[in-house]
């Protein structure tokens, strides 16, 4: 008899352990639900809807301002609108000696992107002056192109084509830029620079298109080649130019 009673006593203990374990398990499940896993869906987030993203505006072969310049009217620095006489411009000699062997251009694989969130610590009046009241239109950096072609980003090399026919260089730059459809490049490609070289024949047709310096991203390289190959003509070379063709070194800066 006593054995039977003791068996009954033993029966309670496993029950308690079992109940405890169940409660512990339920608690764990609830806790896990809170700790891990998304609760609900992200609204307007990374959904896979059927709508197509429309990003074609930049790819239509139309001119668009290609320089993103600091807006000198609306930046975060203090405005100082008083007219300050221009400092005397330092006269530079007209002729700059051309080095015998021009150094090979250095490829900037990661071009520095301008940052807009850091206003200059001590803004000098010359930098943020609004050019007004001087009897002329606003003539900021966004409007200067031609002089820059010869002296700035475009450098004449192996001849004076770039300085004599800056307008033709500009036409080539604009036309290639407008025919570069960056939608062809994958979405997870970072900023890169690709150098492409080609010749422009007398009739304006680009030939001999090749990658001079690859970005390492095949789709990006391919898109730059296509941009040039898509063009039938840049228009005939200037009548005042006697050569039969002109070589072009063209860089493509890709920024997402």
């Amino acid at each position, binding site marked *: 008899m006593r054995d039977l009673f003791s068996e009954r006593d033993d029966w309670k203990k496993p029950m308690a352990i079992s109940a405890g374990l169940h409660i512990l398990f339920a608690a764990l499940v609830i806790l896990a639900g809170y700790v891990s896993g998304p609760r609900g869906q992200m609204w307007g987030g990374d959904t896979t809807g059927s709508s*197509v993203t*429309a990003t*074609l*505006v930049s790819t*239509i*072969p*139309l*001119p*668009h*301002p*290609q*320089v*993103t310049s600091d807006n000198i009217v609306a930046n975060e620095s203090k405005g100082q609108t008083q007219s300050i006489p221009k400092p005397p411009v330092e006269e530079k000699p007209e002729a700059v000696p051309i080095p015998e062997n021009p150094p090979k251009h250095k490829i900037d694989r990661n071009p520095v992107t301008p940052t807009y969130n850091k206003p200059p610590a001590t803004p000098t009046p010359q930098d943020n002056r609004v050019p007004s009241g001087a*009897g*002329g*239109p606003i*003539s900021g950096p*966004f*409007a*200067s*192109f*031609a002089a820059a072609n*010869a002296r700035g980003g*475009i*450098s*004449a*090399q*192996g*001849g*004076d*084509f*770039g*300085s*004599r026919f*800056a*307008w033709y*260089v500009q*036409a*080539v*730059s*604009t*036309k290639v*830029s407008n025919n*570069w459809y960056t*939608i062809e490049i994958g979405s997870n490609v970072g900023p890169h620079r690709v150098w492409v070289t080609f010749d422009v024949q007398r009739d*304006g047709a680009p030939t001999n298109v090749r990658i001079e310096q690859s970005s390492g991203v095949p789709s990006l390289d391919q898109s730059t080649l296509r941009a040039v190959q*898509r063009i*039938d003509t*840049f*228009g*005939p070379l200037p009548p*005042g130019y006697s*050569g039969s063709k*002109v*070589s*072009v*070194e*063209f*860089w493509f*800066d890709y920024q997402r």
Partner: protein
Amino acid sequence: MLKKMKLFLLILSLSFALTPASAQDKFRTGTNLGATMRMAAADFKASTGDPQTGPLNTVFNQTLWNDLDNSGIFEMVAKSFYPLQTPGSPGEIKLEAWGNPPPNASMVAFGNLGVANGKIEVQGWLFDAKNTASPQVLGKQYKEDATPENARLIAHRFADEIIYRLGGGIPGIAETKIYFISSRTGSKEVFSMDYDGAGQQQLTHLRSIALSPRVSPDNSRVAFSGLITDSQRGPSWQILMYSLDLGRPVNFSHFGGGNFTPAWSSDNTRLAFSSSMPGDPEIYTVGANGGSPKRLTAFRGSDVAPVWNPKTNGQIAWVSGRNGLPQIFVMDADGSNIQQMTSEGYAVSPSWSPNGQFLTFSWIRHYGPGAPGGQDIYIMDVASRQFVQLTHDARVNDFPSWSPDGRHIVFQSNRSGSDQIWMMLADGTHQQQLTREGKNSQPNWSYK
């Protein structure tokens, strides 16, 4: 063997070393350079005292300015910034005054215009204002009979020369024409006008209904569909032809059923159109003289408004109602390889860009009572089927047609209260109204 190889390599390297370095001009440039070119178009200087000189000069200056502005390549410098002295010849221009602020122009177009002995004579130059060493980009001379039309024509030609040079070989559109349907005379007739809306004139006198004019690529004929009454068959819709060379209608084959929406292949050899001769409207092609019709589609539901890929003539886009509401489809020119381009709403009136890359069409994306949005012009990249909306004013915009330079689109819109012809740059900017008289619709831009 090794020796031979070495010798060969030696010769090879020598031959490279001995090749004279060719005097090859070279320049270096890249993307994201330079803003839009600032262009100044000085008023041309009167070179004679003829009383006609003044009015014609005004017409010329206005037309030249508009052409350069419409091209979308330049940022035009307002005339109020120009130097007071008007240059009439290269000897009179002071480049510093144009290249520096206030005008700060990159390019200056200038010249002189005069009427003598009933002839208008124009000399025009284009100078690079930033390049004082060799500024001349262009110098041209024109002579025509002294009429306002010719003053406009010379301005168009000079503008096209400038756009061709500075746009990198872009064919100017200043001399192109737009064909359209107007009901200003009481019945729908085919009209033509210059690309800027000037010189509108009536071509046909059907006194019934003319629709969908399409000019041939060689500018010799206009095909359209018209309602005519045949003595035996009674009234029917037929493809009709108007000869621009002869200035009168010319014969074209008649077919059974209703025949609509003709379209020229860009090589001028074939026409595609929609015909209901089998009972259901289907796409047919015929030779340019109307011979050997060939059926391309065979599906229940209307197939209308074909348009050729002008780059290859190997593909045709059209509107099909086989799945219910009309949608844009593309097939090869032999009727094979059918692909559906749009799959929602109500899409009509395709037009193929000259480079073969894009389609433009009119689309009601959300069709039905109470649905948001209107009927708007879209363009779609044919390869990727990505699209972008060009008009956004929620009224009816229809019948887009590409310009031959692939940079402009002409279309019909009722945003002004009635159906009129509008023009815009192919990115949707620079929209302007071209017609105002009566109701005008279904524009078609000439090839050149």
